[in-house]
């Protein structure tokens, strides 16, 4: 079989379910449920810090879940402090936050603030343990921290109820080692499918209060928040492509065995 036929089949397996918006049931896994419950249990006026630790190449997997979480926060009047430890993340993170904020009518400086990027991941995490302003003297737009209304009663992790790390590499480990172990900060994470396996040990030791895994995690979270969006749509498409690949491998093996018998 010409590989181009395989390419066409893959393209069709993506395009058709997308156009038809076929919906397969999504059950909610335990780590996702825990994540959601923890955020739900926070009273209005609480503060969550969200670290957008991913660059353009992981945007497809992590943007949908970040969006769902931001929606939940703004709906519940939970304040969001967004930061990033990754150098090429600020533009993407800023665009995403503004999009959700505009949709939910959240106000910059009151309901959320984006502090941007500072180099030296470990120093940033440790520094914020004593004083956030010592690391971030201004936000991403250059406004001084002291002039941002929502930052008035926030100095360090003590005033932050949950830290969420959206990550495509080993930043979650750094957050756990430095923010959780040193400062007892509660941490939840949303990560790409490839690194999910490395996260389970932390879930077992409860160093992570919850965990979202790739597109699947996003779909589950959107389901819980009641805001179906890209995640729900995309996970169905994922299923079709995975089924296609499995099907192709099986067909390939059947033809292989038939041909071998004929020889």
């Amino acid at each position, binding site marked *: 079989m010409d*590989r181009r036929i395989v390419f066409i089949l893959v393209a069709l397996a993506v395009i058709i379910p997308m156009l038809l918006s076929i919906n397969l049931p999504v059950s909610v896994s335990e780590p996702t449920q825990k994540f959601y419950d923890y955020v739900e249990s926070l009273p209005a006026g609480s503060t969550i810090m969200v670290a957008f630790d991913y660059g353009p*190449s992981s945007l497809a997997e992590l943007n949908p879940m970040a969006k769902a979480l931001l929606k939940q926060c703004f709906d519940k009047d939970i304040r969001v402090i967004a930061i990033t430890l990754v150098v090429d993340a600020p533009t993407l993170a800023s665009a995403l936050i503004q999009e959700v904020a505009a949709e939910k009518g959240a106000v910059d400086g009151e309901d959320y603030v984006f502090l941007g990027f500072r180099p030296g991941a470990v120093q940033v995490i440790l520094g914020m343990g*004593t004083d956030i302003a010592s690391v971030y003297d201004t936000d991403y737009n250059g406004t001084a921290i002291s002039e941002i209304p929502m930052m008035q009663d926030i100095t360090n992790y*003590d005033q932050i109820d949950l830290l969420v790390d959206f990550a495509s590499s080993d930043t979650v480990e750094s957050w756990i080692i430095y923010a959780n172990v040193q400062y007892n900060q509660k941490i939840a994470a949303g990560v790409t499918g490839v690194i999910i396996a490395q996260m389970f040990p932390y879930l077992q030791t409860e160093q992570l209060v919850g965990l979202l895994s790739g597109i699947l995690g996003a779909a589950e979270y959107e389901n819980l928040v009641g805001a179906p969006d890209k995640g729900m749509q995309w996970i169905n498409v994922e299923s079709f492509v995975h089924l296609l690949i499995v099907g192709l491998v099986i067909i390939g093996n059947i033809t292989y065995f038939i041909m071998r018998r004929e020889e």
Partner: protein
Amino acid sequence: MIKITQWIVVTLVLCLSVSVAFSQGLAPLSNVTAVDTPNDNGSSITIKWDAAAEDSGVSGYQILRRIADGELEAIGDLLPAETSTYVDSAIEKGTAYAYIVRAVSETEATVDSEQTAPVEGTGEWFHTGKIPLFITMLLFSAAIVWNIYSARSGKDIFVRRIPGLEAVDEAIGRATEMGRSILYSTGLGGVSGVATIASMTILGQVARRTADYETSLRVPCRDPIVLNVVREMVKTAYLEEGRPDAYNEDDIFFLTESQFAYAAGVEGMMLREKPAAIFLQGTFYAESLILAETGNSVGAIQIAGTDSEHQLPFFIAACDYTLIGEELYAASAYLSREPMLLGSLRGQDWGKLLIFAAIVLGVVLELSGVSWITTLLQRVS
């Protein structure tokens, strides 16, 4: 000076006795010590004390410090009752601090410990926790060097057959027969990467053969420094084969540093030039499969090799032969037969034996409840 210190002690003792009297029997903490934190750059002091017993009514601790005869200042937040150490990292270098640990009860009554002797933070020149690391490093270095010298003194060193290397000559031969080029990628790694250096050594061997056959050898580079080293090495190979005329510097060129732009460029090259043999040797990331599948689609013999363990599955799936991890390093020794490489290969085998021993011994010791091997290996901060 002494007088003032005496005064402080007297006042303290007085204060202590008064606070003890009014603090529902809270006892001052014992064994409070402050020492320079070991193995750091001198930016902190560690304070230790015996945690109060559970029924003592103590609910937390507050650390207080003073510089020489200055005022007492509270540092940090109230610490939970089960803590018994605190690292004060907000200190100035060259200044001595004395500490007091204040026990706080649920009713907010307090009692202070005795003041510690003043202490300064100093940086250490050698991290004592890293001694095992240091010794292992020296031992391993000695093993490598010893094996290299024994190899150089003419002792023959056996290297096991490495599947895929027999195919190198076949691949070059086929390219020559078909009159097509050979494409060699040294991967995305920088010049100090082991995989890149191994890849360049293999490239040197391939270049010797292509020089003989006059087959064109195309090398797109991603790292500007690798480009320069590769040009030197290939030129030398052609010179040593007596074919400097066949060397074409334009065949070894810089493409771009960007990962996927590099992949796009190499993919385009493969589709247009249809090389008969493709070597993908070195460090690769996600683009590995783009290169390997495209190479397969143009019908080239592909020999891949990488130490990036995440990319190995894709090379295994898409290429004809794949050198797995350390096999890539061994291949450079196997092809060049250079005593230096052969010797260090045997040194690495010794290292593996050492790891075996550590694992077996560690398992036996752990099972009998002794955990010094794990402690030894424990990451030192």
